[in-house]
């Protein structure tokens, strides 16, 4: 993260970056709104998300002071949505981080090693990439039981090869750069080269992969929760809200619409950030194939 060698342009560059790309700016604004909702959810909630009024079931949008209506137990959908977003977002952040850390580590190790070690690491990554990862996740969560940690750790553990593959390929090209070779010829340790040269060089690519992976994980969480293999019963995540809506499609279509819009909005926000970062990186002459 050091700005050495960049001089004063480092800070200015960083502030200017978002406005280099409409997509990135829009994505950041959208995401900021969601994060505000998460942070100020207790102020914004108009009702207790877990307690319903059975006399006030299936209130339509805007009726009886319910911004987004009520569900089959008379619970306020707006308050439940706010409650669930926090869960879904933190789950996606953690699985993305788990996959990122393992994948980057394996990718760097494979790029650094030679001969047999590299062949074996690459074989492991190839094999892991061919694994039907969501299926493994479904099976593991079915066996371990639903919950925050089983879901997040499992999703992280089955999706890391995405990072490993890209980090490996990028690190190999970076290792051929003159400044890395120079540093090697001075006798710099491999670890120092990895942390000091390769990892910073990977930043633009990693940012893009992180954004898209985060979006994938949001969807994966909602899909698994929808199947009853994700968030614990009762927590109003998007997937659980959609699951609950299924029995009332006739009487209360807004129960389907609200979480759907939530998912689409958030995933679009994150995809925009990914697209924006990718187009900025491409303009700087980096090749990003995702």
């Amino acid at each position, binding site marked *: 993260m050091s700005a050495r060698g960049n001089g004063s342009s480092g800070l200015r560059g960083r502030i200017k970056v978002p406005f280099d790309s409409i997509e990135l700016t829009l994505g950041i604004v959208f995401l900021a709104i969601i994060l505000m909702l998460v942070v100020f959810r207790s102020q914004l909630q108009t009702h207790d998300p877990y307690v319903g009024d059975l006399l006030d079931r299936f209130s339509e949008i805007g009726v009886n002071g319910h911004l987004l209506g009520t569900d089959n137990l008379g619970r306020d959908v707006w308050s439940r949505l706010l409650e669930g977003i926090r869960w879904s977002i933190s789950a996606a952040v953690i699985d993305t981080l788990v996959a990122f850390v393992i994948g980057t580590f394996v990718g760097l190790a494979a790029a650094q090693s030679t001969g047999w070690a590299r062949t074996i690491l690459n074989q492991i990554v190839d094999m892991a990439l061919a694994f039907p990862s969501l*299926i*493994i996740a479904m099976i593991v969560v079915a066996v371990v039981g639903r919950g925050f940690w089983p879901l997040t750790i499992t999703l992280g553990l089955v999706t890391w090869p995405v990072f490993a593959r890209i980090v490996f390929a990028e690190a190999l090209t970076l290792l051929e750069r003159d400044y890395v070779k120079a540093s090697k010829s001075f006798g710099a340790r491999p670890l120092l080269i990895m942390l000091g040269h390769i990892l910073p060089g990977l930043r633009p690519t990693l940012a893009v992969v992180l954004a898209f992976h985060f979006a994938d994980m949001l969807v994966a969480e909602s899909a698994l929760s929808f199947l009853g293999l994700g968030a614990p019963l009762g927590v109003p995540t998007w997937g659980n809200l959609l699951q609950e809506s299924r029995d009332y499609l006739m009487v209360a279509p807004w129960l389907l619409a609200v979480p*759907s819009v939530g998912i*689409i*909005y958030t995933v679009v926000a994150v995809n925009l950030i990914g697209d924006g970062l990718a187009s900025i990186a491409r303009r700087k002459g980096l090749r990003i194939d995702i």
Partner: protein
Amino acid sequence: MARISSNLRLLGNFIVLLLGITTLMFFALRATGDPIIVMAGENASAEMIDSLRQQYGFDQPLLLQYVYYLGNVLKLDFGASLASGQEALPYVLQQLPATFMLALFGMTVTITVSVPIGIWLGARPDRTGPRIVSAAVIVAQGLPGFVTALILIQLFVVKLMWLPSLGYADVRTWILPSVSLASFLAPKLIRVIAANVSESMRQEYIRTARSIGMSERGVLWREAFPNAILGTVALIGAQFAFLFSGAVIIEVLFHWPGIGLLLFESTQSLDFPVLQAIAFVIAVLVFVVNSLTNVAFHMIDPRVGKVIK
């Protein structure tokens, strides 16, 4: 010679993949749950549990179980389903045609929709029409397939009552699942085709074609389009492979009698032999589709193999 050695390497990868997946499934399943308890039910006595354990070999040391299990996998014997008593592998394979058909329909709709839209967007990306559609495609990309499916069911089955929602027998029941899958896959394909078309429209050979008097239409279809399609073969292959493992939720929603539905039901009953057979079958399918994609890639574009070597 190079051909043989690369085929051997492919075979080696295949064996390592299958060994890896069977090993992972074996230990992951046993580390995380006890199927005997689930099988026996809540009111089972200790003796009953013990006898079941013996019957299924779960009383042996884990390593011995593993060796025994690997031997059986070599014979393609995954044991009998704990739920239905049927042999697990044939049980899974009998669901394969439905999954394959769904993948085929989903992919057909995806390609039919994506190619014209992608080319239209890529040919003139700066005009207003394509810009608006591009924005719509970005939004569509954020729409998970199962959410589309839920909305389609709400609209066409519940509200309008135009289509039946469940099953496999009636051709009309094939429409919604295929469209749901396509709605999820098409935006990505459209964007890649559009990017490829607009990229190849900027190439030197396009300028040459124009300079010798080729019409705009000719330039687009005879020069830019074939080159743009090349870059999408890999994506189409990956999407097809994804459909074998990723259509679970669509199969569940539409009660489509494929591997995904069986997988979901088996996770509910912790049917280990069936789960292991499913993971095995899907790994084989994904590998085969990936290899075929590679072959197709080499056939269409002879440069690929040479660049890599």
